[in-house]
């Protein structure tokens, strides 16, 4: 398959005596959708936070495009191509949707933001390029109609799509989406699935954490199952559905 974007090796994270993530290893390739599932408290969100650089791992390594990033701060990892979204809508409520997505372009801009204080035209011209890119992303994420609206006036579902749009503006190689479907209604969930497929089509790898099993099974190329911080299974949706350890720990008989 295509080249590996993210390689996680023997990753562990402890909080005091609690081992939230233990010896976790997996890989994600370009244009692949990887599901990360497991019961509440199994370490999914901790994994995303460690990958994104919110806190450092206790042990193990994170290779992003071959480069070790586990000691780099959050913002640096975004610049290297790793973007993420949050479980709850985190946004800048006072900006317009367009401004908000343009903020996500920070790492792809050529002109230093301090240079933009000087009243010369260079960054205005760059702004025009950014505007086109933002238009494209708004279209992809179905936010075009609300581009000039203030973020605070959006529904919580729209704010979730906005978070994804803003993450995409950084031109990531890999996107980590943490429970994007929580609180979405059925038709929004379908739009979300469509969007994530569209993101994959652009060659971006996606790691998705989700409790909505129908969505996960329909979307993912591969699934990693966590329980008590450790990987208990990995495979295609069909393999995972049939795996007795996964049924026992998480899915239950009905699934």
């Amino acid at each position, binding site marked *: 398959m295509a080249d590996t974007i993210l390689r996680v090796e023997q990753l562990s994270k402890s909080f005091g005596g609690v081992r939230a993530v233990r010896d976790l290893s997996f890989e994600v390739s370009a244009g692949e959708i990887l599901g990360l599932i497991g019961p509440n408290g199994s370490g999914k969100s901790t994994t995303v936070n460690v990958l994104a650089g919110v806190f450092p791992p206790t042990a193990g390594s994170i290779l992003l495009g071959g480069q070790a990033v586990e000691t780099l701060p959050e*913002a640096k990892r*975004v610049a290297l191509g790793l973007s993420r979204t949050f479980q709850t809508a985190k946004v800048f409520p006072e900006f317009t949707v367009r401004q908000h997505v343009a903020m996500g372009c920070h790492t792809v801009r050529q002109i230093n933001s301090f240079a*933009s204080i000087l009243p010369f035209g260079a960054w205005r011209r760059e702004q025009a390029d950014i505007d086109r890119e933002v238009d494209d992303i708004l279209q992809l994420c179905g936010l075009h109609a609300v581009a000039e609206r203030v973020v605070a006036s959006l529904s919580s579902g729209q704010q979730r799509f906005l978070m994804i749009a803003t*993450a995409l503006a950084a031109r990531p190689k890999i996107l980590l989406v943490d429970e994007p479907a929580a609180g979405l209604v059925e038709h929004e969930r379908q739009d979300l699935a469509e969007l994530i497929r569209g993101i994959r089509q652009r060659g971006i790898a996606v790691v998705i954490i989700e409790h909505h099993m129908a969505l996960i099974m329909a979307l993912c190329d591969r699934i990693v199952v966590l329980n008590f911080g450790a990987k208990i299974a990995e495979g295609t949706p069909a393999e995972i559905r049939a795996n007795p350890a996964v049924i026992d720990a998480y899915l239950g008989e009905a699934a």
Partner: protein
Amino acid sequence: MNKSLHLLPWLLGLAVLAMLPQLITVKYYLHLSILALIWVIVAQGQNLIQGFTGYVSIVQAGFMGIGAYASTLIGLNFQWPLWLTMMLAPLITALFALATGYPSLRVKGHYFAIVTLAFNLIIVIVLVNYSELTKGEAGISNIPKPWGGSREAFYYLALALAASLTLLAALIARSRVGEILLAIRQNEDFVAAIGISAWKYKLFAFVISAMYAGLGGALYAHFQGFINPEIFGVAQSLDAILAVILGGSGTIAGPVIGAFLVVFLPEILRFADSFRLILYGLILVLATIFMPIGIVGIAKSAFARMTRRGGQHGG
């Protein structure tokens, strides 16, 4: 067209301020106007860190003190020309702000406010106790004044500086740095998640705000001809905060209006005699509670309501 419409009130305001020395007959009001222009500079600086970035700093007067003493002491001890020492004052203040801002900007909200308050207290304590250099509580008098102490000339100096530094604040506000500062105020955690190192921008806002204060302090010293530590205490830092809140935080016109208010309001209230400061305090408390968006904020929303029927305008 929209742009020139925005500039019009500014040009009018500047024209009125430029004619003010001819219009004012009472010399004392000219004196107060100069103080107000100095406070415009101080408040514009405070607005960058408080209004745009959302970090309430309580050390603005302390930084004024550093600028005032730096310019005065360098002038007295090395006989350097006044212009040079006044230009050095904001640079020296910037060094202090770098050293204090780097550790203190790691903490947020009330903690940042308290850390900066502590810095202001320390600055005053040092100014009082290092009396071999600063002459302690008695202060320093006979500080040289430019143009042989001409008030009119000083007025125009203060006006030119206040106007250009207001323009600089506006340039910062409309640049990407300004947008990032606003983003930090709204949701600092999310700023890192989209690839922006917030600390750089916070430190920038803090250091620039201190430089504004440092220059304001130096102007104050060479205008009044006398400084002592008490002038640069926490009470004056609170005045800088109030100027921003009263005028309208996160706006460019706000600190201008707020600065004139904090200088003139206590004078206008003189009729109340010994109740003057109580009345002043009461007005401030009520204004902060009932108009937290400031005078500019209220004017903007009123203007928006008036023009809503006439079509939609941005900004």
